[in-house]
């Protein structure tokens, strides 16, 4: 009886901590499983049951050339589409926040459409479009498709940042003799860089991860998610777990670095 009481007391006073721990566990458990199974030595073709610990999968990371190529394609598509989307998105966000022009409200709405539309609809529509325009499916269509949805994420992320931007800083720069280009590179750009970086990071992750739209528009090109999907039937090789783990920790490192950088900036400009 007294034990129950004590447990209840403990829960009452540590409710938030317990709740957070449970939530974190819920979020991290799948990733932990993926990581764990990258060290598994599977019996048979499927890597779903734990048998014994091994470093083999990591040492033979590059053994399957199709897998290596798929990872390379994914990274390449993500890099190119992120770069294009970040530049386009930054310019769009600047225009949308800064200037009053006709159709501004409608464009604001259009920006949200790719975020709100089901991916499967987007993927199918894009395929129709590419086929109608006779654009051969492959790297080009993939990049176009990824740029399309990534632009939205960059614009939305950056608009929030720009809304808080003090326009008088640009006036002050002009007052001190800086022309518009100098003002942009010396004042505006450094100050909105954290927003741009956040948008780019998000875009990169989404591009790397995208399956539905990619599956429709990839043609013969195989990305990492597509490779994994095609392997489900025959059994996913444990190297996939190793790559997934690698991606995860690379992303975490990047985000942590970005957060640290932001914090340092924020401290300085406080």
């Amino acid at each position, binding site marked *: 009886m007294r034990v129950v009481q004590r447990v209840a007391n403990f829960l009452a006073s540590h409710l938030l901590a317990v709740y957070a721990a449970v939530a974190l566990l819920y979020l991290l458990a799948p990733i932990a499983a993926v990581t764990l199974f990258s060290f598994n030595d599977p019996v048979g073709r499927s890597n779903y049951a734990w048998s014994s610990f091994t470093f083999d999968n990591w040492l033979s990371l590059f053994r399957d050339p199709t897998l290596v190529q798929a990872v390379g394609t994914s990274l390449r598509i993500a890099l190119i589409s992120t770069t294009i989307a970040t530049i386009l998105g930054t310019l769009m966000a600047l225009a949308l926040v800064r200037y009053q022009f006709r159709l501004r409200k409608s464009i604001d709405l259009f920006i949200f459409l790719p975020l709100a539309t089901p991916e499967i609809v987007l993927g199918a529509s894009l395929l129709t479009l590419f086929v109608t325009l006779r654009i051969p499916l492959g790297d080009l269509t993939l990049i176009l498709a990824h740029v399309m949805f990534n632009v939205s994420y960059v614009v939305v992320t950056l608009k929030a940042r720009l809304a808080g931007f*003090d326009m008088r800083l640009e*006036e002050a*720069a*002009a*007052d001190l003799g*800086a*022309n518009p280009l100098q003002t942009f590179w010396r004042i505006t750009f450094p*100050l909105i860089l954290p927003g741009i970086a956040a948008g780019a990071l998000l875009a990169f992750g989404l591009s790397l991860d995208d399956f539905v739209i990619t599956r429709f528009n990839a043609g013969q090109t195989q990305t990492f998610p597509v490779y994994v999907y095609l392997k489900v039937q025959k059994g996913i090789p444990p190297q996939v777990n190793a790559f997934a783990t690698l991606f995860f920790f690379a992303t975490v490192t990047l985000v942590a670095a970005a957060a640290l950088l932001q914090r340092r900036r924020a401290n300085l400009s406080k």
Partner: protein
Amino acid sequence: MADVDVRLVDVTKRFGDQVAVDGITLDVTDGEFFTLLGPSGCGKTTTLRMIGGFEQPSSGTIELQGRDVTNLPPYERDVNTVFQSYALFPHLSIFENVAFGLRRKHVKGDEVKQRVGEALELVQLVGYEARKPGQLSGGQAQRVALARALVNRPAVLLLDEPLGALDLKLRKQMGIELKRIQREVGITFVYVTHDQEEAMTMSDRIAVMNKGRYEQLAGPETLYERPATRFVAGFVGASNLLEGRVGSDGDMWTVTLPSGAVVRAPKSLGDIGSAGAIGVRPEKLALLEPGQESRGNRLDGVVVDTSYLGVITQYVVEGDGGLRLLVSEQNVDRTTRSDTWRPGERVALTWKPDHGFVVGDSAKA
């Protein structure tokens, strides 16, 4: 003799249907401390922003040192601005903030260092070079903003309520500092404020603005002693306006008050028009026992309120006919509270006609 640094010719600025600045024409001379004074929304900032090039006039021209700059962007004008919010660049050090203008002009490294050093010395912030704006107090940030503008040695410095964000004590202190710096560097200052005391203590000349135009442009003394309009009389210092039927008697204007009493002011003080008024500042009024002999203007009334303010005692006297007058008397002869006039006492108010002032018809609005 002195050259004109800033010239506005019939400058108007409209925002939609709203007229923010309504046909202002004025000259600011070289080395002058010129102030635009007026209540909130009267168009001070808009006027300053047009001089700086941040706003295009709807009509009219702006000249800087004889050159028409109406259509030049800010970065091609030889003026610098101290913004009300300071607008320091948060990602740059104090040194780089101050050096920003010099770097745009491709001034050499050694000279940049020297001039930034001098500018920081001028505003007494040597040793703060490496800090970021976020690590400064309000007063320090204000001084950096000043140094950042002054270091470029502009022909004209524009200041938009630069002391607005500071507390009263710091504001007074910085005001004195600003005036000192202005004398030291000899740059023309165009200063915007809604604080009449600030304007009076610092300026050589003041344009008192109301609703997009200025009602009087004069030195502090003239503004105080001879306000030309009701608005100026009310905005710069406290005053009593005596309204009534306007008339003329030799070289004197007369105003017959509703009570029947007549007050006078010399015609040399200005034109009263047909609907003007005679005014008098509270400290120019003397309080007398009702029976006492007096010369000049005289009104009778009853003390309704007294406030002892240390240096002076302030009275509200209700004259016959319901007119309320503000009187301030120095606490020289009367040194304690018990000596002062008490509410309910009947008194006479008197002043010399040429201690009053005359406001004309204009700007009755």
